[in-house]
């Protein structure tokens, strides 16, 4: 009898596999749980959470202009998530997207500011695009080089690179590129350096949607994609297979940085029309969560980045209308992440309760 009592009430075992439908059901319900938990901070402010969610939906999708703004927020998130996907697939924790965006933005801005009267708009935009990609790529390459050579911790390296490049922008803002003396503002770009609009939104959305398809193909159907997947699984296996891990790491980080750079270009040329030290504005971090929540699936990223954009835009309206601080969107995003990270547990493990029945059996 005593033994019976002593047996642990619940214990864990790894799950072999799970019905994909069930997997998605769990993931969807975790989003639902997150939305329910997200009501708590809203209720703390004394507001009706349903009203609040209503405003979030209305403020992000209620009018065409709101939808445009929401999409504008989603564009860099999606682009940057695409950039991060190959690194994370490779288990290279690039949290320096913020800096790579900024590096790209700097390069694009240089040409926007100083070449706008020298070349036609189309050429200018193309130059901005290419140089932004190269600059972002180089900024991503640096930590990858040290990782490849001495296995330097990339998480902190990439992070520090953010602050360094942002400092450089601050310097440009108050120094060589400053507009009115002392203003700390870089002048707005000429019309010729601005991304054209399609359907009322700058055409960055076309670029990132194109990137979605390209990234999907790259990750799943190319030799590079295969190499990245092998390295992500085991570096030793990759070496065994004759892959030059360091080189692939650097190549992938260059690519990742380059896409971030392109995002930087889209942001300065399409949205901000100027450069400032907040050009990345946290996108580099938030997009990591977009990438991870999408299980690195390029198409899922579209959905997730839209969800986060809706939250961000909606929370702004919430602040306008109900005086609920706009940071509520960060809280809900955080909760959403926690829930989605947690739900993977129920996909990978099963709980076995004391009397010998696993939850699976119990639910049957």
């Amino acid at each position: 009898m005593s033994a019976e009592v002593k047996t642990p009430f619940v214990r864990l075992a790894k799950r072999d596999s799970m019905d994909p439908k069930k997997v998605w059901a769990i993931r969807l319900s975790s989003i639902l749980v997150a939305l329910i938990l997200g009501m708590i901070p809203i209720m703390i402010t004394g507001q009706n959470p349903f009203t609040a969610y209503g405003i979030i939906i209305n403020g992000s999708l209620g009018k065409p202009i709101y939808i445009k703004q929401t999409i504008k927020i989603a564009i860099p998130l999606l682009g940057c998530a695409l950039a991060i996907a190959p690194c994370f697939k490779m288990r290279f924790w690039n949290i320096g997207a913020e800096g790579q965006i900024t590096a790209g933005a700097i390069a694009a801005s240089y040409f926007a500011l100083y070449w706008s009267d020298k070349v036609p708009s189309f050429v200018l935009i193309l130059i901005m695009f290419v140089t932004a990609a190269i600059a972002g790529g180089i900024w991503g390459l640096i930590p990858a080089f040290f990782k490849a050579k001495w296995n330097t911790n990339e998480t902190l390296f990439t992070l520090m690179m953010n602050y360094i490049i942002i400092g450089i922008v601050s310097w440009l803002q108050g120094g060589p590129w400053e507009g009115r003396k002392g203003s700390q503002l870089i002048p707005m770009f000429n019309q010729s350096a601005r991304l054209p609009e399609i359907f009322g939104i700058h055409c960055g959305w076309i670029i990132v949607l194109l990137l979605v398809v390209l990234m999907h193909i790259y990750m799943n159907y190319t030799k590079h994609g295969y190499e990245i997947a092998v390295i992500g699984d085991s570096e030793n296996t990759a070496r065994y297979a004759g892959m030059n891990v360091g080189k692939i790491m650097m190549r992938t980080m260059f690519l990742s940085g380059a896409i971030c750079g392109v995002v930087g270009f889209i942001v300065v040329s399409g949205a901000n029309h100027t450069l400032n030290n907040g050009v990345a504005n946290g996108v580099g971090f938030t997009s990591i969560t977009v990438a991870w929540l999408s299980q690195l699936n390029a198409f899922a990223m579209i959905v997730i980045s839209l969800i986060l954009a809706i939250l961000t835009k909606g929370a702004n309206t919430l602040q306008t209308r109900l005086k609920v601080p706009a940071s509520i969107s960060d809280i809900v995003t955080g909760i959403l992440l926690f829930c989605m990270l947690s739900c993977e547990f129920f996909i990978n493990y099963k709980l076995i309760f004391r009397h010998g029945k696993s939850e699976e059996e119990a639910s049957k």
Partner: protein
Amino acid sequence: MNTSCAIEMRGITKRFGQVVANDSIDLSIKRGEILSLLGENGSGKTTLMNMLAGIYQPDEGEILQDGLPIAIRSPKDAYDHGIGMIHQHYKLVDVFTAAQNIVLGLNDQKLDLKSINAKVKAICDKYSFVIDPAMKIYDMSVSQKQTVEIVKVLYRGADILILDEPTAVLTPQETDKLFAVLHNMKADGKAVIIITHKLNEVMEISDEVAVLRKGKYIGTVKTSETDPQALTDMMVGHAVVLNIDRPKFEKPVPRLKVQGLTCIDHEGITKLDGVSFTANGGEILGVAGIAGSGQKELLESISGLYPVKEGSVSFIGGDGKAKELVGMTPMQIRKTGVGMAFVPEDRLGMGLVGSMGMTGNMMLRSWRKGKGIFLNKKSPEDLAKKIWDELEVVTPSTSFPVRRMSGGNVQKVLVGREIASQPKILMTAYPVRGLDINTSYTIYNLLTEQKMNGVAVLFVGEDLDVLLELCDRILVLCGGKVSGIVDARSATKEEIGFMMTTLGGKENA
């Protein structure tokens, strides 16, 4: 109820997903007795013992101590019941000293070095060990680490000791010492369980033998009333011929010439020291040595994975011309058309991509092929299907992640792929570790078949009996140096065992 039983396991069942690791097993051990738990690799011995040690939880069944049911929910519970286990992979903290490791997890006393050292010394004296309590683990040899493990268990007052393949990494001489200690413990009234699959050790050390086969309990016999052949029958279920078929290839030709190969690891420790030998096509060259004598480095440096400090590795082609391989990356070696296949020790961590299916793993050798940036998935898919058929790999599909397959099937995928590349040199490291006897024989046959095709096969093994029966010649490594190369048909186990510990060896053997 038999109260003389220290521990009794009844109807223990443990599943990992679909795999039934232990199926309703009954086992008991008495005090003052050494029990051998015999079974092939993968028969569920370690899993069963891990349940006594509190690492795993049984799905079904009960455990009784001195006739009373107990629950072992954690290693701590196990210690509280006087059960201590020495795992195959030592559970030691590298940056701690021996003494720190020994007292780790004890709650009943202060961290008083003096009394710890005194108690450690008492234990060492009692069972005749030698350890330095202030030595850091990362500075210790394998057998020193094992000693620390045993002292650790004894320090906790364990009177039921479980040793998981304790001799796998020891030299015959060290093994003898260990067995002497175990005899002392037995005399001291302790119950000892040894997990092993080496029959000679079973016969030498144990009072009783319990046999597991494929997760099932077959039975327990008194050692004095049985013999190796009977035990083998119990292990494998039907009488097998222990002899491995060893045809002789008529005209072996030199294929791989290694001269003065020296490797130093990133910490500056010499791993290989002036290794020279020639491997012939049409011959299996065994590589013996205690664990960590440079086997891994040897194979990896030949295949271009490990940096070489000095020496040369040359491939001798069909035309008799030598091609220097040192300094080339694995990719360059492959591009020069040398045809080298390598089955590494760490299958999922090195030879295969665990998260991919068979097809994805077939690509590991061929992904570069073809022009353009896109992968060719067609021919790997065909190859995967071929291996699936020919080697009878058990898997639901060619995209089923290999990580989820059983050990034997994983190895079939790996060996199958390597052989499919039609190599001139085939290097294998512990290719049958963890496999059941039938799969082991499949692998032996595949290797012999390659040999008969004129391939130079390098076989790194741990079981001297297998080495002696499978190989044509055996190269013995000792501390990164070549201790000697012997003819497998005439050498004895003792001879090789001595060479493993003493350079040259022969004089005293």
